[in-house]
């Protein structure tokens, strides 16, 4: 095989040499250069659009807008005030949806009968059908309690697990076992050991 001779123009050979390997200084293909130029032009447009004219929304703005729309949707779908929750507690469709959520998630501690410790002394959760309320008995108080939980007592934070819709359903189901105007006896929680 013929040895490969260095090219006639010595200046096209780059001065460096690694492990005896040298390289030529060849021109890049034009299509490659045009691609580079195109990305530079794109960058100018992109930069002016976002940074100079401020026409496009920045990342944080997009996130905030998305969060705001989620928040708005949540507020719109869950009108949580006492009267609307009482009204929901009389709607059979909502109550039966709430019962499904209750049976799947709450009955482990409060029992399917909702009677908790009153039915069985080994049950974990308190009775939800009597008029003694450990943490307040107005529908919005119940709603907020389910959402936020009572961590010291082991009531979990259901907000992120269930979402607003299911929580208002399950609140309606609990309140369907009560009547508006029933006395609310606030039971002092036993001292936590």
């Amino acid at each position, binding site marked *: *095989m*013929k040895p*490969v001779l260095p*090219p006639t123009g010595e200046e096209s050979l780059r001065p460096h040499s690694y492990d005896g390997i040298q390289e*030529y200084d*060849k*021109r*890049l*293909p*034009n*299509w*490659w*250069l045009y691609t580079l130029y195109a990305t530079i032009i794109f960058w100018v447009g992109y930069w002016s659009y976002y940074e100079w004219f401020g026409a496009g929304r920045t990342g944080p703005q997009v996130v905030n807008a998305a969060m705001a729309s989620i928040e708005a949707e949540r507020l719109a779908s869950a009108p949580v005030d006492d009267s609307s929750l009482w009204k929901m507690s009389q709607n059979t469709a909502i109550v039966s949806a709430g019962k499904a959520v209750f049976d*799947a*998630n709450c009955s*482990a*501690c409060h029992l399917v009968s909702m009677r908790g410790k009153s039915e069985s002394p*080994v049950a*974990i959760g308190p009775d939800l059908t009597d008029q003694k309320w450990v943490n307040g008995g107005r529908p919005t108080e119940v709603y907020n309690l389910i959402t936020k*939980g009572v*961590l*010291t*007592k*082991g*009531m*979990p*934070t259901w907000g*992120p*697990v269930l979402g607003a819709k299911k929580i208002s359903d399950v609140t309606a189901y609990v309140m369907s076992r009560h009547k508006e105007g029933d006395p609310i006896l606030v039971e002092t929680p*036993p001292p936590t*050991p």
Partner: protein
Amino acid sequence: MSAPLSHEPPSRDSVTTIRSDGSRPFVYPADAHGRFATARQFSAYALIAFYLSLPWIKVNGYPAVFLDVANRRFHLFGITLAAQDLWLLFFVITGLGFSLFFITSLLGRIWCGWACPQTVFLDHVYRRIERWVEGDAVERRALQAAPMSANKFFKLTLKHGLYVLVSAIITHLFLAYYVSLPEVWGMVRAAPAEHWSAFAFIFVATFGLYFNFAWFREQLCIVICPYGRIQSALIDDHSLVIGYDATRGEPRGKVGTTGVGDCIACNRCVQVCPTGIDIRQGLQMECIGCTACIDACDDIMTKLKRPAGLIRYDSQKAFTGGRTRWLRPRTFLYGLLLLVGASVATWALSTVRPANFGVTRMTGGPYVIDAGSVRNQFLVRIVNKRNEPARFLVRLEDVPKTVRKIGFEEVLEVGPLGEVVQPLVLQQARGAYTGPFHFEVRVEDAAGRFHLERAVEFLGPEARLLREEEEEKHRHERERH
């Protein structure tokens, strides 16, 4: 016999398809016919048929390959993977890597010439269209050089029209890998505005394919493809490559002259090369192993009644008079890595079940102590990966008898491709409590086909502390009375 080349005579000092001013000479490779061309054509059509038929063949109710991105379910030859099984991708990628290592060290760039979609579609679809519309290499160059005429305009329109059509067909079937054929068909019949993202994908991908196969061609292999670069580190003098037997061929000379080798310097091997190199200058990075030069040279040698194989598949070692060693440290190492990778991948795939589940602690403290007991609360998430309802039993293993399990008392039904999250509470009376322990949550298919386990720890205070506190409370009570 020697038609003029479409480009400058190739040299090893520069890439033929990039001129010194950076412009690109378009290569018009001549036709090569022979046993390799025929075999490659068959294998290419088989591969195209295979790739294009995957969305049509149903295995276990799903297309053979259906990457359902919208529902995050990936159906591969009857196995359904969920997003949770993504870790398997590690083995798929390393497995591909090791196979590539192994095959390249043995057989060189066999993939590039025989199986790479770039070569398969370019040589056996697009170049065929070009050949059919515009004629052979000489005619194609003449047409390119000719002034615009009705005939040239018609031929160019026909060729590029067919290119776009074929690109669009390939893109649609490619999209079917992701959204299934009926859905592609539905989208095709609806207005573009209704599925604008799919439409944009088709538009851009069709254009990309058209540009690549109509103009870009060998530049992808030479400049963009990383595998082309990696191979130089993977092959050695014993790897199979396409090369020229210089000892037999040199010095080149016309038929009839004495004292010359077998090569008659007809340049046929250069004319047929799709990347524009001269294989007689030795192994070069541009060579994609397409075998065109073998067929071309064999054809000439046969006509001259000389033995074929002046250009052939062989190792660098063999071309310089040595013997090819197939068993080398490198092939053993790559083979071993491949074997390890394949076994782990097989094991990993065998652990994939038609369901997935996870156990997480509920928010709040890691454990709750009330008047009579210590308890741990978990959320169990069960994902059904089948497209039919599934029934599960949730059981506990290695749990002391004194522990009460609350939740999952009955068989749980999860809808097709559904997901259920439910609480699981473990409660142990203070008196029976002896400290934290490890246990297992087991989800069983109600029909007994499979089960899944997760190791979990029951957390709580040290039993001694709890007892001391208990005793102190009793003392207080006694003192009060």
